[in-house]
């Protein structure tokens, strides 16, 4: 299973994501430069976190025009797996691959800390190795993670079970206190209708080794490997 890790000017989690895939998951990985229109035969695309184009104008607003995003859109349309993490999620929103938008965190400050998220659906290629209602300990680090969508979009997300992760307490309860950024419905991650594109604000690559305090994030990448193996 070959993973492609996109690099935009200003990406800063590309090495972390690459390390996790190649050294922890022991799967082939390749960097893909933002000006490339060729995804190099990758089986899955990871859009890493960071500050693509310095987050100037609006998070993800400039990155969506990169040549590589055209290729990613085609890849997604043909059913390829795309996972956007943090800034990667914001880029997928701006590109229209996922619905909704991000507002500044409710506290108007950057927040970096471990949070708990609850798995809302195991029926995606990213969550097949997880149980519904399972609680994962995965850190966040962002200034704009306050997910917003209009009422119609939200009800559509709920109806189609496109909400995949929600911020929760350690016991798995969805509460305001457990919500670190004011995100609507405590949304931490959503997928598209085709269920092959996932965006999430928490950083699973930061929770994939024992020394980092949690290995829960690894389960998401293992799910991807498992799904792709089945698909072949």
């Amino acid at each position, binding site marked *: 299973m070959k993973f492609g890790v996109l690099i935009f*000017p*200003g990406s800063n989690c590309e090495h972390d994501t690459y390390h996790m895939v190649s050294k922890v998951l022991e799967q082939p990985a390749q960097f893909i430069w933002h000006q490339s229109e060729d995804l190099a035969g990758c089986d899955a695309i990871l859009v890493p976190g960071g500050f693509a184009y310095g*987050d100037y104008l609006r998070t993800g607003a400039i990155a969506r025009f990169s040549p590589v995003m055209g290729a990613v859109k085609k890849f997604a349309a043909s059913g390829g797996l795309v996972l956007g993490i943090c800034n990667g999620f914001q880029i997928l929103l701006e590109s229209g691959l996922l619905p909704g938008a991000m507002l500044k965190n409710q506290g108007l400050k950057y927040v970096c800390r471990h949070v708990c998220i609850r798995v809302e659906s195991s029926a995606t290629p990213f969550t097949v190795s997880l149980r519904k209602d399972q609680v994962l300990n995965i850190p966040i680090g962002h200034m704009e993670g306050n997910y917003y969508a209009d009422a119609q979009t939200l009800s559509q997300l709920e109806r189609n079970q496109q909400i995949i992760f929600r911020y929760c307490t350690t016991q798995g309860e969805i509460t305001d206190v457990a919500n670190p950024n004011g995100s609507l419905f405590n949304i931490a991650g959503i997928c598209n209708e085709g269920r092959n594109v996932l965006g999430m604000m928490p950083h699973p690559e930061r929770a994939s080794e024992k020394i980092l305090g949690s290995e829960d994030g690894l389960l998401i990448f293992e799910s991807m490997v498992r799904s792709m193996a089945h698909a072949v």
Partner: protein
Amino acid sequence: MRSEAEAITMITEIQITPELLAQHNLTEEEYQRIASCLGRQPNLTELGIFSVMWSEHCSYKSSKVHLKRLPTTGPRILQGPGENAGIIDIGDDYAIAFKIESHNHPSFIEPYQGAATGVGGILRDIFTMGARPIAAMNSLRFGPLTQVHNRRIMEGVVAGIAGYGNCFGVPTIGGEVVFEESYSQNPLVNAFALGIFKKNQIFYGRASGVGNPVIYVGSKTGRDGIHGATMASAEFDEESESKRPNVQVGDPFMEKLLLEACLEAMKTGAIVGIQDMGAAGLTCSTCEMGSRAGTGMEVDLQFVPQRETGMSPYEIMLSESQERMLLVAEKGREEEILQVFRKWEIDAVVIGWVTDDAILRVKHFGQVVAEIPNRALTDEAPVYHRPLKPPEISPATSPVQLDLPGPEGGQGKLDFNEVLGRFLRSPTLASKEWVYQQYDHMVRTNTAQLPGADAAVVRIKGTDKALAMSLDGNGRYCKKDPRRGAQIAVAESCRNLICAGAQPIAATNCLNFGNPQKPEIMWQFSEAIDGIAEACLTFETPVTGGNVSFYNETLGEGIYPTPVIGMVGLIEPIRDGRGSWFVDDGDMIVLLGPLIDPDCAYSKAAKETLRSCMRWIPLEEDLYARWANLLPCPPIDLQQEKRVQTTCLEGIRSRAILSAHDCSEGGLAIALAEMSFSHFTASAKGATIEIPGAHALENVLFGEYQSRILVTVKDHDLPVLERIAHTHSVRITRIGKVGGNQLRIFVDGSLVVSQDVHDAEKGWRTSLGHYFD
């Protein structure tokens, strides 16, 4: 174009007036020296160049003679002071570069940008050597948070550090935040960065190879930051607000691109030397690179990318626009380098070449606008043996002055539960979560110890090593006794690393002092240097470099002398790493080092003072800071300290010690409370402590006796630790057991502290944030 150039060169004939020299912060004697170095009168551009290179900030003219007393050599040192950063060998072909630098003055004038560009500058110092930054820390000092202007400064500084470091992609993983009235008009912002590289990938700031092209890369040059270095070399007055345009503006996105492009360009093998343009910008980088290599440099400013039109040579040479670098390439291979920068969409332009005459020659549209021997700017810069004078009444022995509204508290019974609670909520001791949650402290996925531990720890991928680092200063000790205070700063820094399971290997320092032209200040400085030197020799941690920040005075009022020590240690193998929290119920709690020293002056003062503070200091104030400020500097015996540290590290390596915590600010009770609090997914754990013998409670609970470490061990491992302690003649006292939901402390059989650890933690964790609600 031609006419513009002519217009600029025409203004070079100037009249040297006392006002002009004052504007450039040069004395009449210094001016005479300039004229004799040149053998003629300087033009305005040259005067500007001299003024920044001879400023305190760039020349170290007041500190140089003292800094020579610091130990700078050791088997691991690959590069000591004098380059952009010091370099240490950590084995297996890996090396690390690290340094700390102050950005105090800009941060007072413009907190966000001042702090942000401080972070940017120190990061460039690291990656200009070829190392990728993997960790950042900050030592911050502000006035009390009860004053709105201190809150405004702190909020801006923290946001600036976050804004820059987070975007750049370096984890900000530790440091210190201290509150004290003395920093109200002069906050301290000291930024530390550490990077890693292979030993054979080190780059230096040297312009070698006559005829090699000089390449300017990075942001365009603007009028921002002109005379930043000169500003940092003078006291503040009421006019300081108007210096805001002297503060540079940072662009972390550009810095991130510059990092990636520089590291990629270094891989071509075509780079001969590289230096960042920090303080004094193009001036400093051109003459220092030439000076180090014994060469000269000729540059033509018409090729320098410019943000604004009509900039004079004076402005271009003195601009401190951020995110710029100067490279020297191998002749004929410049295209390989330019290509990398084009890929990253960064300006890169050949602006001159290396010459053999050891002269900095600056042209503008082909006409010479400055011509100065490098030596005049660097080696021949003035060096001052400024007069030293100890204060008339030694602050170490002067009686405690209670600056409190009423008489001393009298005989009323003190509630030590209440004292502990208020201490835990005092901003100086409270959790700094409000600060570090704004910093991305996990990017690069190496953070093995979350902020809040004794030391910050990052693992090194692909090895069985981790690095521990700590920043420590104690202005209030140094005010009383600068030499001993400095020793304690070094000792505490090492102790923090030891608790994390690391062997301290090298230090950097940031020396924040007042006006060096005052003999008392210079005496403080000299004493502090001796203290650092003695302690660093004892702990075998050479100083690899650092930074001196003088003139930390506003309206003639100096700050507490504040040397800040940045210590780096090595954890190897990684399994030797330890946290500073209770691990399991039933574990034994053991104190390494003395319980109390009842005879020292410190003990007597502590007892007197606490009662009055509890009575007179309003609830919203930093009770701890007010109390501690009234106390003398505690004694320290460096040899004893070393034995305690060795015992702890051997105890960790023998696997007897499960966790270890430095017992310093706030004493034993605070250290125990901190060990009991929740950490990550582990919940809070109480403990029962029994301290034998009758002691003054103020001292046994909160006394800041040095050379003490609290550790936890399993019952059956205690004999192992006892043996190690006896070998090193270290006192070891079993004081209690982990368990329950209460922190209960018995002294001589009476229960004096009984707190629910969850409640205590809540107060400690949320206190700082309440000041900003």
